[in-house]
């Protein structure tokens, strides 16, 4: 800080628009971000790339003030800004466009553009509607966006809303010198033509504004940015001018260091126990998520669904589990075919589901470990003569499962909300283990889990498969998917693009898989 101050006093080079120094953030034992420093000069367009879970979102969230870092500082135009205050960041000039849109659907486009900064008549205090309408329309004309500013946002298609969102961010920055726009995956869900409009907006605006552009789509990054920063395993590992790197270089940088094979217990990887299918999804279709997905799983086979966020992997998993209803297609499990099925029906077919976000989707935080586990087995622990639960049977089952999952401490009476992320995930896992299910669907089983627990979860996946259960797996880490799966099914924009075999003796490289995504 003192260096920057003297620099300004001396009238030397201006302070960078954004200067992050030594940002670190831990979640439990997981280093989401480790000593990340990022410097962006005024007017630059910088790309940020990395795999899912590499720490990009954490960095973006710190810059937006949504997440408070454990260490490190953020300075904007040379002035330090308190971290963890979205308002302070926004006042200092940070504007964000993310996939999760923040438009008010019931309002018109122009009302959204001026939301929170309405023009009012100084004497009467009334809104100057005509002036705002005209202002918004003029801005859209200037930027070349062909959207009626009087339309209701709820009537606009997704892509148009995304453009409105970006226009709003640019509008917010219009009055202020040196706005910094953070675009978090703004092109997912956009067609190439719409992406082109977006790019021209950015190029026009970037005379004054500064951009941080987060994307999975490397060609977009290379055509738009002047510089690209690569985030891998919580570290910013590379910072290159776009002229000096190719897509292939970026892929290699994103992969990071290799892991030993025993990490994934490769010696215990079997392959399919028989060629009989345990599950087959035919012509699966869900509008807005995926189309024509055909998926097969054999007994004892681990099938990894690979794809970036929004490619449909999580939705396919949820649909098979009955949590999403298909528009078309059918599912065959153990010889029984269903066209529509609920979670309840899926369980009756022998499908068990580990949903992606345990706190939201799976845990009863105020209930004990025992109750959280037993909830899936209440039918098995009923007394034979009365409609009551048999406490003895329950505690025997629960302690057997607690031992199997390696819960530490192995206390069945602890409240689940008090456990670490790793222990919580093990508790959810215990719901799959007791009754030899036909198919286990594991959506991101290692998300937010420490390294030690990861290895234990890998072992449990192997164990499940070895008993003949067919496993469908998704993961934020491609490395992990390759390590665990017998076969990878790659999805892009909701369609299966290819299948890649992944036997223990001939694993594909991450580069090969990434290139298909």
């Amino acid at each position, binding site marked *: *800080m003192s260096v920057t101050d003297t620099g300004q006093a001396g009238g030397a080079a201006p302070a960078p628009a954004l200067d992050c120094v030594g940002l670190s953030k831990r979640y439990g034992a997981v280093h989401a971000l480790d000593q990340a420093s990022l410097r962006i000069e005024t007017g630059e367009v910088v790309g940020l790339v990395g795999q899912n879970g590499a720490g990009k979102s954490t960095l973006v969230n710190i810059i937006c003030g949504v997440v*408070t870092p454990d260490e490190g500082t953020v300075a904007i135009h040379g*002035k*330090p800004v*308190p*971290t*963890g*205050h979205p308002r*302070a960041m926004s006042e200092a000039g940070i504007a964000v466009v993310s996939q999760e849109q923040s438009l008010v659907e019931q309002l018109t486009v122009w009302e959204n553009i001026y939301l929170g900064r309405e023009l009012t008549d100084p004497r009467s205090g009334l809104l100057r509607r005509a002036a705002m309408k005209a202002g918004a329309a003029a801005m859209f004309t200037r930027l070349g966006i062909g959207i009626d500013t009087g339309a209701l946002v709820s009537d606009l298609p997704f892509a148009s809303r995304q453009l409105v969102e970006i226009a709003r961010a640019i509008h917010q920055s219009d009055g202020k010198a040196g706005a910094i726009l953070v675009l978090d995956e703004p092109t997912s869900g956009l067609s190439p033509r719409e992406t082109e409009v977006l790019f021209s907006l950015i190029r026009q605006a970037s005379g004054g504004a500064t951009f941080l552009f987060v994307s999975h789509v490397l060609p977009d990054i290379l055509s738009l940015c002047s510089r690209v920063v690569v985030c891998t395993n919580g570290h910013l590992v590379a910072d290159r001018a776009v002229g000096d790197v190719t897509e292939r270089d970026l892929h290699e940088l994103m992969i990071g260091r290799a892991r030993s094979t025993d990490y994934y217990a490769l010696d215990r990887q079997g392959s399919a126990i028989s060629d009989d299918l345990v599950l087959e999804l035919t012509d699966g279709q869900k509008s807005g998520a995926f189309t024509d997905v055909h998926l097969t799983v054999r007994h004892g086979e681990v099938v990894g669904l690979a794809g970036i966020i929004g490619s449909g992997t999580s939705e396919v998993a949820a649909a098979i*589990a009955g*949590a999403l209803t298909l528009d078309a297609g059918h599912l065959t499990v153990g010889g029984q075919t269903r066209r529509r099925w609920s*979670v*309840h029906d*899926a*369980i009756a077919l022998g499908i068990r*589901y580990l*949903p992606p976000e345990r706190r*939201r*989707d*799976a*845990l*009863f*935080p*105020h*209930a004990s470990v025992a*109750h959280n586990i*037993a*909830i*899936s087995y*209440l*039918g098995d622990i*009923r007394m034979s003569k009365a*409609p*009551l*639960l048999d*406490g003895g049977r329950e505690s025997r089952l629960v302690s057997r499962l607690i031992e199997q999952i390696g819960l530490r401490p192995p206390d069945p009476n602890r409240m689940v909300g008090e456990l670490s992320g790793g222990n919580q995930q093990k508790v959810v896992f215990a*719901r799959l283990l007791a009754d030899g299910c036909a198919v286990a669907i594991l959506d991101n089983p290692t998300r937010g889990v420490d390294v030690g627990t990861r290895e234990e979860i890998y072992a449990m996946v192997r164990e499940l498969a070895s008993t003949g259960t067919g496993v469908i797996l998704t993961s934020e880490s491609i490395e992990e998917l390759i390590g665990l799966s017998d076969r990878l099914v790659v999805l892009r924009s909701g369609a299966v693009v290819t299948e890649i075999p992944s036997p223990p003796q001939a694993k594909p490289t991450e580069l090969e898989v990434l290139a298909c995504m």
Partner: protein
Amino acid sequence: MKTSNSKAEARLTASSPGGDALDAVRKGARSFLPVLALVVLFAFFSIMRPTFLSVASFQNIMRQGAFLTLLALAGTTAILTGAIDLSVAANATLGGILVADLTGSIGIWPAIGVALIACSVVGLVNALVVIWLRVPSFLVTLGMLSVLDGISNQISGGSPIEFPTGTLSTLVNEQSIPGVPNAALIAVVVVVIMTVLVFLTKLGRYIMAVGGNERAALLAGIPINRVKISSFILGGLIAAIAGVVFTGQALNGVPEGADPSLLASIAAIVVGGTALSGGVGGPHRTLLGALVIIVLSSGMDIMSINPYVESIVYGLVVIAAVAVTIDRRRYGAIR
């Protein structure tokens, strides 16, 4: 500039451990506060007015406590699923009116049977509207409250119904165990049954699961609609029992008779430590909460405190109890 920053950061770092400490206090409070409140109130009123410790005073507590406990139990199952049934008191009134109206013509036991069925159907309708029309239970049951009052007044013509009270009075007011009115026995039996149901049956676990995390319950394959319907029907059934006890104690059918006890019954539930956000607490806690409220109320009676002041006290107790028990993580704005 620099100092203001470091202050802001200090405030930030302080905020999360502070939240954890508050959580811990809240958790402890849920378990021990009702018992502590009961002891303190008892000691306080005994010292202020030694007549508070008389047999008459105890019997009064048991009589009033029996009705309030039953009414609060009727509301507990819905609250455990994360919903709320504001029509329980009006439903109890309806049950009581039906018994008074029908005893003369069809006899006391068939009349009680009709009341049990009618009140259960009210619970079923509440649940179906909540599920099919996706209206928050708070609003559905508020509407139902008004509908039920209309029906009760229609049946009674707006004035108390006289009826042959002999058997009902024996059933409710006699003392099968010397010193203990039967109403209190009925309440204790229902508490025991409901506590067993909530903690030792599949339905009970499902009720707690739906209240604890509805989405997780759905993804775990729990038939959440059936669970909600069951919880509202159970509430209706117990509301009918509360209505029968009320009519047996009043010795005539009073339109809107049980209605004023709605707030006290919700106070009993939350004071006992059952969270309005669902998934935490249970029927045994409702018994504790009802005792706290009744001791408070009869203590204030014995001290001749103005009834208007009592109303103010109930209101404040509800707000304080909710503040202590509710799960703030459910509400995005906080935290």
